């Protein structure tokens, strides 16, 4: 390594340029390269075409997985893509970001038999990529209904809802707070999981059905209000996700160097030149979910020398899947358990480390033990979850701090539905948000049809 490159790498504090452009390209390339034709055939041959297949049951969107795999195996890739998108119009993104190892692939009978599931996620990507690359559309906008539905948030839930509403002929306006659509697909997922601006291509593909208008810079509670949306539309679907970030809850002012993991992830996704994103030399990530992993891995890939995830409970309690944890450790991230943040340390106003307290479970309660340790850190990522910020002026009934919904997404207001992370039935998965958006659209359609009948 040339002297200057080494000194860049070892520079204390938060700095850009720890890696060069080539390393950035290598590190942030597609983590799971797509299957080639031959690989897809071989992989599809392993599917047993189970009856009442466990993988379908495990899929939040209930994609007929054995059928689409059989369609791939018989050379009917477009049929496969249609089978997927009938249930999940964002099947392309879900193929990339679904934790398949805890969903369809976990229950695959070949996982049971041999510990090697059929590569369902990669096969789904194979089929959906081909359909999207050729621009093949499987669904048409329904006959105009003269109904107008407002959707808040152009993320997975909102897009799925909009597409299904358009299939039923309703006019849809999506109000999006940011300047770009996609929601967490665009801003919240590690860059190596969805390369080549895929999220934007997918939005274009989904909205190509027509009848969907997206207005940007419209944040609920700021530029728009729920009351006005209700007054000017026949129905409202809320899919704005979680806009608040949980704080570490430590006393005193935070020194420079403490950042939200979601912001770091978003800035990396938006950066054309990843080497320009500043990152610390020694990083501590507080949290145990996918956000913690995505931030930690990407910090390491950006050239951070030491990255340590500290989680306050045990390995078995981590929300990140085993696969994600292994991915992190394989990239050189250290994962430590039973540690909670206690005090931030600073030198001259800049973060210098963090004091952590060992924890334990006593009578089912997580308690600090009093024993402490200190990690040197020039950057700390908060990844202890996001929170729902009410923007309805208290009009919506909440449950566990999120919008209370019934199974089909109905809220306490009879013309408002909700889905995805902002609803109480969300589980922070893209695929669940898609299912809820889709199902809410069906419920909205049923309600609107009943009105006009």
């Amino acid at each position, binding site marked *: 390594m040339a002297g200057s490159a080494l000194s860049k790498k070892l520079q204390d504090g938060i700095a850009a340029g720890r890696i060069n452009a080539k390393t950035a390209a290598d590190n942030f390339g597609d983590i799971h390269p797509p299957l080639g034709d031959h690989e897809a055939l071989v992989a599809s041959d392993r599917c047993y075409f189970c009856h009442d297949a466990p993988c379908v049951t495990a899929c939040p969107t209930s994609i007929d997985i054995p059928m689409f795999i059989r369609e791939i195996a018989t050379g009917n890739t477009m049929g496969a893509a249609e089978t997927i998108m009938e249930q999940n119009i964002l099947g392309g993104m879900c193929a990339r970001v679904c934790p398949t190892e805890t969903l369809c692939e976990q229950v695959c009978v*070949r996982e049971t038999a041999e510990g090697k599931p059929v590569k369902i996620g990669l096969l789904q990507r194979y089929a959906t990529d081909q359909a999207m690359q050729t621009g093949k559309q499987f669904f048409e906008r329904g006959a105009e209904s003269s109904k107008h539905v407002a959707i808040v948030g152009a993320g997975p839930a909102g897009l799925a809802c909009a597409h299904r509403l358009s299939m039923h002929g309703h006019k849809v306006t999506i109000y999006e707070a940011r300047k770009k659509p996609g929601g967490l697909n665009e801003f919240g997922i590690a860059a190596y999981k969805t390369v080549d601006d895929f999220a934007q291509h997918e939005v274009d593909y989904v909205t190509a059905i027509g009848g969907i208008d997206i207005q940007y810079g419209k944040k609920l509670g700021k530029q728009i209000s729920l009351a006005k949306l209700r007054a000017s539309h026949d129905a409202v679907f809320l899919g704005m996700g979680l806009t608040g970030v949980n704080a570490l809850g430590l006393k005193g002012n935070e020194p420079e160097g403490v950042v939200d993991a979601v912001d770091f992830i978003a800035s990396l996704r938006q950066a054309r030149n990843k080497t320009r994103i500043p990152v610390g030399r020694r990083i501590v990530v507080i949290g145990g979910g996918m956000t913690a992993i995505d931030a930690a891995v990407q910090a390491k890939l950006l050239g951070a020398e030491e990255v340590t995830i500290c989680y306050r409970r045990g390995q078995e309690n981590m929300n990140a899947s085993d696969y994600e944890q292994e991915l992190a450790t394989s990239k050189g991230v250290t994962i430590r358990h039973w540690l909670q943040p206690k005090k931030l340390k600073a030198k001259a106003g800049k973060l210098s480390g963090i004091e952590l307290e060992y924890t334990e479970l006593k009578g089912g309660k997580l308690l600090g033990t009093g024993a402490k340790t200190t990690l040197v850190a020039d950057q700390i990522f908060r990844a202890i979850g996001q929170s729902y910020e009410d923007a309805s002026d208290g009009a919506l009934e909440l449950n566990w701090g999120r919008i209370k919904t019934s199974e089909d997404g109905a809220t306490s207001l009879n013309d408002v539905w909700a889905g995805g992370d902002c609803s109480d039935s969300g589980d922070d998965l893209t695929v669940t948000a898609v299912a809820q958006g889709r199902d809410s659209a069906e419920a909205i359609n049923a309600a609107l049809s009943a009105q006009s009948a």
Partner: protein
Amino acid sequence: MADISNNFAGIKSPNPFWLASAPPTDKAYNVERAFEAGWGGVVWKTLGEEGPPIVNVNGPRYGAIWGADRRLLGLNNIELITDRDLYINLREIKEVKKRWPDRAVIVSIMVPCEEAAWKAILPLVDETEADGIELNFGCPHGMSERGMGAAVGQVPEYIEMVTRWCKANTRMPVIVKLTPNITDVRYPARAAKAGGADAVSLINTISSIVSVDLDSFSPQPSIDGKGSHGGYCGPAVKPIALNMVADIARDAETAGLPISGIGGITTWRDAAEFLALGAGNVQVCTAAMTYGFKIVEEMISGLENWMDEKGHKTLDDVIGRATPNVTDWQYLNLNYVTKAKIDQESCIKCGRCHIVCEDTSHQAITSMLDGERHFEVIDEECVGCNLCVNVCPVENCITMEQLSPGTIDKRTGEKVRDKYGNWTEHPNNPSVVAAE
């Protein structure tokens, strides 16, 4: 260690694995490589009469069907007999036999159905000191249109006549190769025997169209947009070949006639099955054309190990052992009652047994128990058909268990009878009633 040396109609070879008359045995180069790899013998690719060499197509000669993982299951060809000069072949046969005296070298022959043609070629083959000849009465494409190959093999009278000519004009054992493209293989086999054949070999390839190109609508292999039926072989034809071998082995009229078994033999296990049904040895082609000659190592070692394990000392301990167990349907024991049993430990819960039984058979397998996926045989409905065993992806997960005599068959409510009873004596058989 078991002795797998082979004596087939007086022709000796160190093992029962011969390469069939086909592309792998067309010239000395291939045959030498085969012997180096360990093959016990070869049947040299079919020689035709003296004259201008045979002309093959210059486009593709083979077509195939595959499993989805591209495992070759069946191969089809439109190649003709050797297209090399007769005398080059004869010279090479002689040289190879001289260099490999312990291996069997058989020469396949196909000439027009005239005695003079056979009389002309047989002395030339005699002179090579080959161990025997095989009469190609089986080739279903190209040559049959010229009155040879299967055109002879489909007419028992011709088989007998040509076999007789050959026996009268050569010192060598005569093996008659039979075509499966007939209705009852016993008739051509009997004809061969009547003509004095020392042995028969079967099956030759099955007339086939292997696939159609759905862009050009041409059968494949496609020659400039057209296709012609070819000869089908490989693992897919094995069951047909086994049946025909057994038909001849258990036919009283051909009893004792040596049979060289051919048809989809890919592993030692396939070979052992042919031997058990009455073949004296086996011939292999497609497996070699799929994987190369080295597979014979697995065949030799697998056969030896199996024989050792079972205490079979020589091939004679194996040959024909299954033949007496092949019978006609009417003699099968109707008092033999089985039920499928699913081993819950090895079940991976794919549900295929349930759905095929539910949709296409007897509704005899559950799919749920207390809201959980659970697959279990319903004895009241199970007829013991074996379909679930056949579709289960896990070996030995589903087994057919015999109900012991005296127990109640829950499907019929009747006690399983202790004695053998077949259709010929069953009360529902009208001919039994008629006989009374």
